[in-house]
């Protein structure tokens, strides 16, 4: 059975060490100057070190450059892409064509993963980006299981799905939190993710959406953590190439536990589907034990009906 890649975000070098020990096949890092919702900012030195450590352990490193770029950022982006190409990063993640255009020029051999968040929803568009050089697409988290498997069947490039963690549900270029604080006359320093801010909808006070600002504007994350552990078998059978765990807003300790569970689950299913099934309940117990209060584990949109 073809084993999917287990991919996890990392916030710093120390976390990378722990994640490697926990059994990841690949990590995703970046810097908010170029990447969206990175879980930590890696300086150039740290990026170099990260790639070195990972490659020593045969772990791949994908770098996020999936921001929406404006003219004023082109020079720094170009220089960053050169830098990543020289380090032999295993792939860069892009969301829009600015990166493609620059990479063609300065980093033609860097593999490209397409992650435009909620815009990756059909197989023809995925294959289209394949003809433009993408080797992998990270599917929209709003797709259901059937659509995911159907896309995989016809996709000409690798397919990645999210299996755990929060999803992005909103991105604005505006600094909406700072604007609000200014409006109220409160002088706060920048409302980054360490401030642990949440939004509650007026009518559903029990549901909490993390909100924070970074250089890319305002980000709102889902109120739930996606957890598809109980259905990994379907995804593995369907041949999905990579399983991503989003570690943003989680401690290293928690993340290591999550990765460990998914590592075991994948290995066990690929070895013996029967044993996998008997262990799911126990694994879910372990995951629930470290879930923050008020953040339910759900299957997101995998089995949800949507209308339009």
């Amino acid at each position, binding site marked *: 059975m073809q084993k999917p890649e287990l991919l996890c975000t990392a916030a710093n070098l120390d976390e990378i060490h722990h994640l490697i020990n926990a059994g990841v096949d690949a990590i995703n890092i970046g810097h908010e100057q170029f990447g969206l919702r990175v879980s930590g900012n890696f300086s150039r030195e740290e990026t170099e070190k990260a790639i070195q450590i990972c490659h020593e352990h045969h772990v791949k490193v994908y770098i996020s450059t999936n921001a*929406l770029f404006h003219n004023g950022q082109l020079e720094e982006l170009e220089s960053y892409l050169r830098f990543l190409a020289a380090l032999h990063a295993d792939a860069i993640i892009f969301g829009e064509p600015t990166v493609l255009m620059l990479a063609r020029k300065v980093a033609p051999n860097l593999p490209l993963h397409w992650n435009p968040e909620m815009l990756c929803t059909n197989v023809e568009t995925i294959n289209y980006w394949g003809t433009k050089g993408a080797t992998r697409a990270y599917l929209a988290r709003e797709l259901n299981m059937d659509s995911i498997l159907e896309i995989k069947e016809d996709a000409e490039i690798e397919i990645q799905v999210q299996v755990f963690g929060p999803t992005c549900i909103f991105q604005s270029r505006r600094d909406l939190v700072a604007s609000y604080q200014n409006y109220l006359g409160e002088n706060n320093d920048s409302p980054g993710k360490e401030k642990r801010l949440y939004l509650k909808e007026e009518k559903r006070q029990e549901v909490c959406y993390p909100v924070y600002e970074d250089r890319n504007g305002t980000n709102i994350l889902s109120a739930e953590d996606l957890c598809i552990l109980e259905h990994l078998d379907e995804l593995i059978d369907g041949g999905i190439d990579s399983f991503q765990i989003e570690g943003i807003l989680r401690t290293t300790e928690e993340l290591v536990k999550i990765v460990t569970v998914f590592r075991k689950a994948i290995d066990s299913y690929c070895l013996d589907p029967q044993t996998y099934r008997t262990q799911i309940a126990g694994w879910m117990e372990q995951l629930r034990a470290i879930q923050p209060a008020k953040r339910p584990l759900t299957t997101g949109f995998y089995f949800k009906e949507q209308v339009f």
Partner: protein
Amino acid sequence: MTRGPIMNKPELLAPAGNLEKLKFAIQYGANAVYIGGQSLGLRANADNFSFAEMKEATDFAHHHGAKVFVATNIIAHNEDLHEVDQFMKNIEKAGIDAIIVADPALIERTKQAAPSVELHLSTQQSTTSWPSVQFWKEEGVSRVVLAREVSLQEIREIKKHVDIEIETFIHGAMCIAYSGRCVLSNHFTARDSNRGGCSQSCRWQYDMFSELQEWERNDTPFTMSSKDLCMIEHLPELIDAGVDSFKIEGRMKSIHYVATVTNQYRRAIDAYCANPDQYVFKKEWLEEISKAAHRSMTTGFFYGTPDEKDLLYIEREDFPAFDFAGLVLDYDEEKQIVTLQQRNKISIGDTVEFFGPTMERFTWKVEQMWNEKDETINTAPHAMMTVKMKLERPVKANDMMRKQK
């Protein structure tokens, strides 16, 4: 050096939720209108055009030297793709000039199925840099509708680097997220925002709190609601920057709104292009707009990233001060009597305003009215009823009458 008239005027592009709105938008000065089809549209709940109506729309528009674009800017799912080819073929047959498209799968299919239809890249792609514009140009689109997050300076740079038509929004409601990058509605209402299901969840009221420190609930809710874009005071800069098409938002808006807003931009563009050096902005253009528009206005991202002054906090929507009261059907110069189609209650003693595509607006006090049977009436209470009214100043069919609330 003095400048002569500007020969290649930018296009003024207005929304049209249905055939009637389309006709008014064009008569009130739009060079092009955009409409929705009955599938593949982004505003699932707007009135949408059947292919027969599209044909009628293009006949009317082309007769008046205007163009018709169809917005098909969904982010498609596999199952949406089956209908694309036939849809595009039908559009081509209906004489549609261009489609506004966001998803590359639709671009590719349209190139095959309906090669004569021009492709405009939708703002849903959030195109923000010139290399990105260059990319789409190489893919064969003839126009890029830029992201609303692009500044005026950035537009100048884009025009300098890439030879392609650039369209920008100049008026109307704004998505507060990067277009396409919001699934609030998917989460809150299980409606897919990128397939026309946006429930405008951003405009709801929210409380913000911190996990680290218990905050008191604030009376001012957290908001993600932007004031409406209005660039009427800044058209010369936009025209000089080389913007090819100016887009007004609002396929759901009323005839009164579309006609009023479109016409003020028409007047401003014409005035500037006729004589750029002598151009002065007329305050009445903005006054006219505020008679039909109801939110406070902002210049969006054109002059930098908006802040709290560009958002709507406590001041929720206040409604326009004027109602569309009647549509002019006919005017009898000899008898000085106007025939109107009632659009809102009119009574003797009301002060009303007449305006039209080219006339100067004037106010009038309603003194005498008759119904269809020429019986004197004091009030015209029924929607769409025909009313006659004494009016000493001439008007033309399709002029409008509005009334202060």
